């Protein structure tokens, strides 16, 4: 009996200390500028890497990289396909399949292709593949055509040189080319009908897909004849699709997995002290945002003063600290962490006080405002919704949170035009250039948000100006004005960035991990990963 009592007291003490412990965001010191970890080049090559990720590619559009519109597809396809340029640490644009490029004018790019690059079937890649791939992308229904920008023409100068001409200056062009949908495809085979990219993956990348069972497993094998010497290092990469977060954490702990992508913002704490396991919080440019439906029943958010009041009440610092355990960062529409991104603390809404919000509500006759916030159930979205609810209570706005599975959420938000929901929470991929995601603030072009967002000519002009602003001192100014315009519009309100946690067993793998990721691709340098003997 005494022993049971002792155990109970000890358990209570442990629980008590756990409850009292403050939440401290783990800090990770980069090992090099822009990098949290660098694969050990001295480790011997070879071996099989066991990876776990939460979801598989959305296969309704098949395996065609040009139709891939979610980060997990970009990530998996990047093992097989390659782009002309790639994103380096700190969002530097680095050579990929193009060894160099020139910009003779603000609307002209000339790419010089790498020698010795072949597709996995052995055929050398040439300028016709690059031209054909870009033309196919621009003519196709894929969303990335919008991000690649106003391309007027693509032409092969010779077998190893490609010239791209834009209609107007578009600064994110190279960053957009660095994402998987802009990969170079085997156009000769596609044109001949011998390869259907929707079902067959044939790229120039370091791996070939040996096996895929939807939602279960991918097996990638090292590709002989890859253009980079001594790469890839690993013989095979086995990617298991493991939706359950706790299972991925458990798999890391008991050595069932070498490397896992984790969405739980508490994962660093959960894995702290587990021998051999490293949990690195990776910043991303993805960010949560609040949608206020301009067509909401009763016209709740049709008055810009109401939307502005809601925006003022948002405490982004609190959302980041509480809902994302300090791993997220407050952001404006230019994702925090990207070069030239605006300072969210300087946004008009951030510099106004709550009295101003209350005054705006009173002016708009909305002092008794209440609405339903529709959120999906994937963590940490419910926690973000709860902090929003608390933020708005400070100005007397009552929020009911409606938590739905992702399918029902998509139906509620995108299923009707005009949309019938009040407000909703979602997140955007933030991409690799500070201006890119702002394209979605042009509903007449984006289309997906036309049901709940009214076009605004001033906002559209601010987006276009920012996208055209050349690198230099003028660009931060244009981006700052873009941030302010989005903030004033307040139909889609950027909140905080959405972090991921990269977990791996240091006794099993030596990976390269970027400090900040723009395309959700934690496997960006998978060809460098070294598998270690345990």
């Amino acid at each position: 009996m005494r022993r049971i009592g002792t155990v109970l007291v000890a358990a209570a003490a442990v629980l008590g200390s756990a409850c009292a412990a403050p939440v401290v965001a783990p800090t990770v010191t980069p090992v090099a500028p822009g990098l949290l970890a660098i694969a050990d080049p001295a480790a011997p090559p070879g071996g099989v890497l066991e990876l776990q990720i939460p979801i598989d590619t959305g296969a309704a559009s098949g395996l065609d990289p040009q139709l891939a519109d979610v980060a997990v597809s970009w990530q998996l396809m990047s093992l097989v396909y390659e782009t002309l340029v790639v994103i380096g640490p700190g969002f530097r644009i680095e050579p990929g399949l193009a060894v160099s490029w020139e910009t003779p004018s603000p609307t002209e790019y000339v790419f010089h292709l790498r020698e010795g690059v072949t597709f996995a079937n052995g055929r050398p890649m040439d300028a016709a593949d690059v031209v054909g791939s870009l033309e196919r992308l621009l003519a196709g229904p894929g969303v990335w055509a919008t991000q690649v920008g106003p391309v007027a023409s693509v032409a092969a100068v010779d077998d190893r040189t490609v010239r791209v001409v834009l209609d107007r200056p578009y600064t994110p062009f190279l960053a957009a080319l660095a994402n998987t949908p802009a990969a170079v495809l085997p156009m000769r085979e596609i044109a001949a009908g011998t390869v259907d990219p929707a079902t067959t993956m044939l790229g120039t990348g370091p791996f070939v897909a040996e096996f895929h069972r939807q939602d279960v497993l991918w097996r990638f094998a090292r590709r002989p004849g890859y253009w980079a010497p001594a790469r890839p290092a690993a013989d095979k990469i086995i990617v298991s699709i493991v939706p359950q977060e706790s299972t991925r954490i458990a798999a890391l702990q008991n050595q069932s997995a070498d490397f896992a992508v984790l969405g739980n913002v508490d994962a660093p704490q959960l894995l702290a002290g587990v021998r051999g396991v490293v949990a690195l919080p990776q910043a991303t440019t993805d960010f949560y945002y609040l949608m206020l439906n301009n067509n909401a029943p009763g016209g709740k958010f049709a008055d810009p003063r109401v939307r502005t009041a809601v925006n003022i009440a948002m405490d982004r610092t609190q959302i980041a600290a509480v809902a994302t355990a300090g791993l997220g960062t407050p952001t404006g529409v230019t994702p925090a962490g990207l070069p030239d991104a605006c300072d969210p603390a300087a946004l008009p809404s951030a510099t106004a006080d709550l009295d101003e919000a209350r005054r705006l509500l009173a002016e708009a006759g909305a002092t008794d405002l209440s609405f339903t916030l529709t959120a999906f159930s994937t963590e940490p979205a419910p926690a973000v919704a709860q902090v929003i609810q608390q933020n708005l209570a400070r100005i007397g706005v009552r929020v009911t949170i409606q938590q739905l599975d992702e399918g029902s959420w998509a139906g509620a938000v995108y299923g009707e035009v005009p949309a019938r929901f009040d407000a909703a929470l979602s997140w955007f991929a933030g991409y690799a250039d500070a201006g890119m995601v702002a394209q979605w603030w042009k509903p007449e072009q984006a289309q997906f948000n036309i049901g709940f967002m009214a076009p605004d000519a001033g906002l559209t002009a601010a987006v276009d100006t920012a996208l055209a602003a050349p690198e230099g001192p003028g660009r931060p100014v244009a981006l700052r004005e873009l941030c302010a315009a989005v903030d004033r519009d307040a139909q889609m309100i950027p909140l905080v960035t959405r972090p991921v946690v990269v977990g791996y067993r240091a006794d099993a793998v030596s990976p390269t991990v970027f400090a900040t990721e723009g395309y959700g691709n934690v496997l960006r340098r998978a060809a460098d990963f070294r598998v270690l003997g345990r």
Partner: protein
Amino acid sequence: MRLIGWWARRVASAAATLTLVSILIFAASRLMPGGFAEVVLGPFATPEQQAEVSARYGLDRGVVEQYGLWLAAVLRGDLGTSMISGEPVTVEFLLRMPVTVELTLLGVAAAAVIGVPLGIVTAVRAGGRGGAAGRLAGGIGVSVPEFVLGSLVVFVFSRFALGLTIGGYRPLDEDVGANLRSIVLPAAVLAFFAVAVTARTTRDAVMGVLVEPYITAAVARGDSPFTIVVRHVLRNAAMPVLVVLTTITAYLLGGAVIVEYLFNLPGVGSYVVAAVGRRDYAVVQAGVLLAAAVFVVLNMLVDAATGVLDPRLGSAGEAR
């Protein structure tokens, strides 16, 4: 002749049940908010892309017409095409069925090999400490939900692996050792409940038989306890045990969703649940219909076996 009539009635009843299930699941899948095109193609899909996908899978037709076409296809043995993978649903199920069957076999085998003897022992020693311990263990086994036990096992074995894996399922035909290492823990979680239910049912059935006069007579004749148990008790206590084992089998074949989810086993249950999330209608409809069919068919077989095991009930059934 009476037997033929009995079977005809059972088959008609099964067909009516399955028809009702098909209507319910079809209606439920269409009433779920968020259509396939919105969920899977995502917000960036153009109306043209959505329309193309809808037309490809017949989602642009009227609901009644869709149901009629689906039912006609099912009756021809065609369960439809997964809208996610583009593969026939039958193929997708066959790919996942080995996992479910393996789990089911292990769970049912544990129930039969451990649960039945345990139930007999606790019944025979009902007054002793062994009986009390057996009752307690059975009570715990029945009371602890799978998600609690499964989460506990995941937690414990994440710290103390003992060579067993979590979340890294390998098919039996690929690597026997790796397969067993990945399936032992989920099978044990399932077996915990199955053993407990079987042991309790066996115990109750055996205790009911032990007070029968023919057992007293056998004891008076001087038959050995082993002979009494094997010859008299087991045969007469077998029916409820058979029913519970059948129910467990049907339940597990329908997909042990929680265990598959917790341990990331690519079985039928987790596949159907994922299909619900992505509005992969053909998979959801086929999964629910097949699970119902398994229940119906196994129940019919148990009814038939009942007549063999206990001719009195068989005659009663025929008389009805």
